[in-house]
């Protein structure tokens, strides 16, 4: 605990800001049902009330649902889906990446070529094709994006662990006759974690931007589930009339992305050992 506080104290203001933002979002996401004044898709008043009218702080949307409630539930859905997707992508990409380097030889070649093929097909288009085949549902959405995203993680994990595999202590473990799994989990993984964690932050942000692009093309998250990207999309015609309402969900996304990146920068800085004097 004490170490934690010490660490926090040493953090630059940007990182503290980032941590606060993340903490706030997680809190809102976890306690959405308690915080939100109404139910997620409950119709509570007339449609398109302006901000502040009839007790709706942020007004109501096109069906008369409370904007604030939708935003709060949006945190839950948007962050939840992006988090699960990113975790899955790292699980798939990370495991295959480490396996590829540890086993080497034809396994490495085969996995590498498969990833090449997947990466050669534009992600958005590929997702579009698959989602059209399977129909859009949240689990499918998560799996599809995770698989497509895992190719990038695979590359990174492979590149990072490649440098570690050739180091003496891994060689030593091999000579001791340790199993592949042991080598991966005990030797390679801990040593390749920092860049992977940094990448996690960035990937996490890309996931919901990607979902927003899919929603824009009509294949992302669907109503009545509230998510920020779809909210921006639904209100996009308002932008041309300089109505600031779409800024709320868009700003919510942006703030989180900035926050996460600040923390990632700090983390990279701490672990990479770059001396950043002055």
């Amino acid at each position, binding site marked *: 605990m004490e170490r934690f506080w010490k660490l926090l104290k040493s953090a630059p203001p940007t990182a503290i800001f980032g941590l606060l933002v993340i903490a706030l979002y997680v809190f809102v996401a976890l306690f959405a049902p308690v915080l939100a004044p109404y139910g997620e898709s409950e119709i509570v008043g007339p449609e398109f009330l302006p901000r502040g009218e009839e007790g709706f702080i942020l007004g109501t949307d096109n069906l008369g649902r409370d904007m604030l409630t939708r935003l709060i539930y949006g945190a839950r859905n948007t962050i939840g889906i992006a988090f699960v997707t990113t975790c899955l992508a790292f699980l798939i990409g990370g495991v295959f990446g480490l396996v590829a380097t540890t086993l080497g030889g034809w396994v490495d070649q085969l996995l590498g070529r498969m990833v090449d093929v997947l990466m*050669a097909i534009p992600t958005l288009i590929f997702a579009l094709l698959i989602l059209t085949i399977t129909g859009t549902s949240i689990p499918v959405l998560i799996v599809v994006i995770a698989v497509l995203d895992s190719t990038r993680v695979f590359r990174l994990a492979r590149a990072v662990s490649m440098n570690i595999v050739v180091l003496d202590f891994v060689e030593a473990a091999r000579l001791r006759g340790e199993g592949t799994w042991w080598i991966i989990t005990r030797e390679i993984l801990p040593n390749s974690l920092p860049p992977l964690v940094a990448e996690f932050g960035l990937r996490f942000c890309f996931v919901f931007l990607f979902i927003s692009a899919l929603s824009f093309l009509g294949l992302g998250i669907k109503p009545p589930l509230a998510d920020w990207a779809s909210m921006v999309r639904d209100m996009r015609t308002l932008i041309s009339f300089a109505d600031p309402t779409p800024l709320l969900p868009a700003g919510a*996304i942006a703030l989180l992305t*900035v926050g996460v990146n600040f923390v990632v920068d700090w983390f990279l800085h701490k672990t990479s050992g770059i001396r*950043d004097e002055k």
Partner: protein
Amino acid sequence: MAKILKMVAQRLALGFLTLFVVSLIIFLGVELLPGDLAEAILGQAATPETVAAFRREVGLDLPPHTRYLDWLGGMLQGDFGRSLANQREISGLIGVRFANTLFLAATAAVIAVPLAVSLGVLAALYRNTLFDRAINVVTLTAISFPEFFVGYILILFLAVQANIFPSISNVSADLGFWEHVYRVMLPALTLTLVVVAHMMRMTRAAIINLLASPYIEMAMLKGISRSRIIIHHALPNALAPIINVIVINLAYLVVGVVVVEVVFAYPGLGQYFVDSVIKRDFPVVQACCLIFAATYILLNLTADVLSILSNPRLMHPK
């Protein structure tokens, strides 16, 4: 040099293999799509009879492997085939679209790459100053908004309110070069905002990384000015990762811009692709996919060659 040529040849061969696998995957994907071209085109007007007639006419009644092999045969002779939906030559249609896509990507790259690299160098030069942080926050914020949102905001300010640029990129072949540039300015700026952050951050990181190496410290001890060190000593050695990230973003500018095309009604390849997927026009889907994949493979190859060329140690291995 011979080594490079050998690598290029190897990679090209692998590239062709990749393209083949991609075409197979896409074909299977299109086959698995629910419904087919006839139903998609006729929509609500589909009766069993017209659907059957449609299928007969465009050859959808043949078994899948026959259609794939026919297509592959034509492809190997450089024949993209015809669109099933309107019987037009695919090569002609795609040519125009692809030229548009490349034009937009090039315009965006011409703005974005120098901007990103110089911002990155400046950020490294003045790192941890207010300037560095401000650039960081601004670029991060720009990539944090969905692309279409950035596009609409630019339209609001630069087209609707200030009336500087047109809000839709209505381009055709008979436009002059500068008129063309003018009309794609807004989508190009949108894309610039989307890609600058990534490139700029990588440039900064690569340079800062090098600042810790002994030869730079040596130069510093010699009392050479910071800016001179960064531009003459660090930047050349940081080129490899920078080129890499630039190429990744160039690839994105070519293959990932469907959303921007929709927002600005720009007739690029992405929209054509999406339309064809929706209508299950498989020769077009195939052709677009191959072009995208080939672009990606070629750009990656270029990146590798450039990295080797820029790195004396790789050029002259011991």
